[in-house]
């Protein structure tokens, strides 16, 4: 790999060489994320092994004999070394086989309903927090140091500092119990989805509000950095309208930092779903994860982690891509 390629040379498949380093970078990033996910899954297997008790005991009736328990342990394969079980599980992964739970159901069946629900909730929350953060951050930037800026600064800090369950309880009291505007919990319909779209509003807001706080601060900070750059200063001195300066000169430069912030939010959102889904009875994987850990149900825990991990990895990859492209643009 010592051959130097002349700038502008065309690579195989007719792609312009300028994109190639980016594509290679993405491929490398993807590979790195996959390895990370595999390490994480190995960690899941190891961690559950370290917890007290095992799936055979956790999913048996109280008072079964030790002989029955041993038989169940064998039936679940728990008598085999954890590394072996991990390898078996991992090798099934490419075929879409996530294994069988300690209660004898296919992990894919258990997740088939809840995972899309969580994905929907998470995606909506992420979209809402992105839109909210961009709007609030930009609004504050247009009035630097003003009352709006200070108010948004204080509120976003407060929102980010609030745990999801505090936000949830407050929203529940105000929007459901006092006003009766929204249903208090989600009831699952025959298709495994919430019976009504109104049921998703409270969990959505509970998840999004802390993340709006977090991302607003990032947007505001990134825009402040941009404001200090010479080309932005020049644009302002040229007398361009502030909105135009914001949209054409500051936001593009702030994009990489914002993308990373939003990607970070994805991880925090997933953590929040465990609490929020339980509180609002939303049929997602948060509740499944909590139950599976209690049951020491390794394949199910790993299944949830793999599904959520894949979704988040994809998001991080996109964030990376946005950053690479934006930085590439800048270098040009």
């Amino acid at each position, binding site marked *: 790999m010592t051959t130097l390629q002349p700038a502008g040379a065309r690579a195989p498949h007719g792609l312009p060489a300028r994109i190639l380093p980016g594509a290679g970078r993405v491929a490398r990033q993807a590979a790195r994320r996959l390895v990370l996910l595999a390490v994480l899954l190995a960690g899941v297997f190891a961690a559950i092994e370290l*917890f*007290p*008790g095992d799936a055979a*005991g*956790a*999913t*048996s*009736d*109280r*008072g*079964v*004999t030790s002989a*029955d328990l041993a*038989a*169940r342990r064998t039936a679940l394969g728990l008598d085999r070394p954890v590394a072996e079980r991990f390898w078996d599980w991992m090798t099934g992964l490419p075929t879409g086989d996530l294994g069988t*739970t300690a*209660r*004898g*159901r296919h992990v894919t069946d*258990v997740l088939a*309903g*809840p995972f899309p629900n969580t994905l929907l909730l998470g995606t909506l929350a992420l979209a809402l927090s992105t839109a909210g953060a961009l709007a609030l951050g930009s609004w504050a930037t247009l009035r630097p140091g003003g009352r709006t800026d200070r108010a948004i600064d204080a509120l976003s800090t407060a929102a980010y500092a609030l745990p999801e*369950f*505090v936000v*949830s*309880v407050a929203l*529940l*009291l105000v929007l*459901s*119990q006092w006003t*009766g505007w929204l*249903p*208090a*919990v989600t*009831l*699952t*319909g*025959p*298709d*495994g989805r919430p019976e009504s779209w109104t049921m998703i509003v409270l969990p959505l807001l509970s998840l999004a509000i802390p993340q709006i706080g977090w991302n607003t601060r990032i947007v505001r900070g990134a825009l402040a950095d941009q404001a200090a750059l010479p080309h932005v200063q020049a644009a302002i001195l040229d007398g361009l309208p502030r909105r135009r300066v914001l949209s054409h000169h500051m936001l593009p430069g702030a994009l990489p930092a914002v993308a990373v912030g939003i990607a970070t939010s994805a991880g925090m959102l997933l953590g929040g779903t465990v609490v929020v*889904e*339980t*509180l*609002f*009875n939303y*049929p997602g994987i948060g*509740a*499944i*994860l*909590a*139950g*599976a850990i*209690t*049951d*020491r*149900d390794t394949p*199910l825990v790993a299944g949830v982690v793999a599904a959520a991990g894949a979704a988040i990895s994809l998001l991080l990859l996109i964030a990376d891509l946005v950053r690479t492209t934006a930085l590439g643009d800048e270098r040009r």
Partner: protein
Amino acid sequence: MGVTRRQLLWAGAGIGAAGALAACSSGTGGSKDAAPAGTASSQPRAGGTLKVGALGKASAITRDPHGTQANESDYLIISLLYDTLAIPGTATNTAPRLAASWKPSEDLKTWRFTIADGAAFHDGTPVTADDVVWSLQRLRNTPAGKSRLPGIQPEGIKAEDARTVVLVSDYPNADLPLLTRLTTFVLKKDTKDDAIAGAPGTGPFKLDWYRDGNARLVRNDTWYGGKVLLDAVEVRLFESPQAMANALLAGQIDVASNVGAVAARTAEARKDVQILCRPNDMAMPIVMRTADGPFADPRVREALRLAVDRDAMVKQVLSGYGSVGNDILGTGDPAFAKDIPQRKRDLAKAKQLLADAGFDTSQTYDLITTEDISGLAESATLFATQVREAGVKINVVKQDSKIFWDATWLKSPLYTTYWGTNDSVVFFVSKTMLSDAGQNEAAFKDPAFDEAYRAATATADAAERGRLLHRLQEIEFAQSGYLLWGMADGIDLAGAAVRDLPKLPGYGRVQLEKTWLAR
């Protein structure tokens, strides 16, 4: 911060009646029904859909009637769809269901169960003895089968004719029908394991749809057991009692099944919500090891029983939703010995007994507990404070549930336990107090006790049997390793229109065929 996270979560349900006294709409007294007096709603009427919330974990769903049921929601759905041979009763422990009647042989070893007239599966096929035999054998062959049908071998389950099933016990057992109350769900003979989920039952409701632990069931118009009132029952799974209480208070569900005392307290201010108490639902006794260790001397155990302030326990641990216990398990049983005088707090006598027994009061003793159920750890803490007044120093140790059931249960000198599924005197005697019982929690061994039990199970004569059951309870009261300070009520919340919900403790709460809606 004086507010814990749990309290804050409950705040969502509008907590505020913290000091208020427990008030059950009906149940024990049955007099304070929330229904507006004088309305014409006292006559049961047919129709309507009842939405019931029940606790469960989406990760632990099972649809196999003979499987390990961790979810109350699953058990409810299964019980509406399928019938057991017998169900828990009020006047007697065991009431008929799919089996209309039963009769023992002279030696109480062979029992003949007759299938109810007109019993049929939802697809119209009549229930035969072969179906029952196949189902019971399937149940018996599950890992927990031996403890579900103790003393009955798979070969001992036979069909005598099309309508008669014979169960043969290894030993005389006057209480054998008790065993048929809980998981003896009947399916069609030779139902394949992978077809269990959609298999037709014989119950009062038929399956409309099922999804991830939630279900809709519609009335079985041809049910052999009588007229079913509701058009449909919708069961919704709830991971947390908080969310279930919120759903009820918001009117999204009609019943919050077994939602607990904390939810009841949050609902006390609401006139449009019924708080229904089912007495004798949950026992959470303290276990004192009798075989060895610091509590082996009966005088020490007696002293602790005298040192506990039972009224305060019920009031504080159960928020008043419960009743005082008398150290005898099986309080809901018609055979429960109500005439044995209630043990009351007597610190002077307790101290005297401890001194007589030479109990080392300079030591601190560990009381091991878990947070498996609401109030359990709190009961341990309050108990420790109370017995301190008798000079006994107790240190409460909260243990992870898995460690507890592995390392503490059946082994440690002092720990808390709980029982929520069965209520008969004989159940506890046979499961937890016989010398060779598999779940002998206090390692209790008393030949006279074992002898009285064997005599009782081999006695058909009701009066003689009653005398023997009384004898068992006397020994239990005086000697056993249990300190039963109280019994927690089972608590359901219901909307104002709901009528005639089951009032029985434990799994007696799942029969909804007589429930109706006044709206």
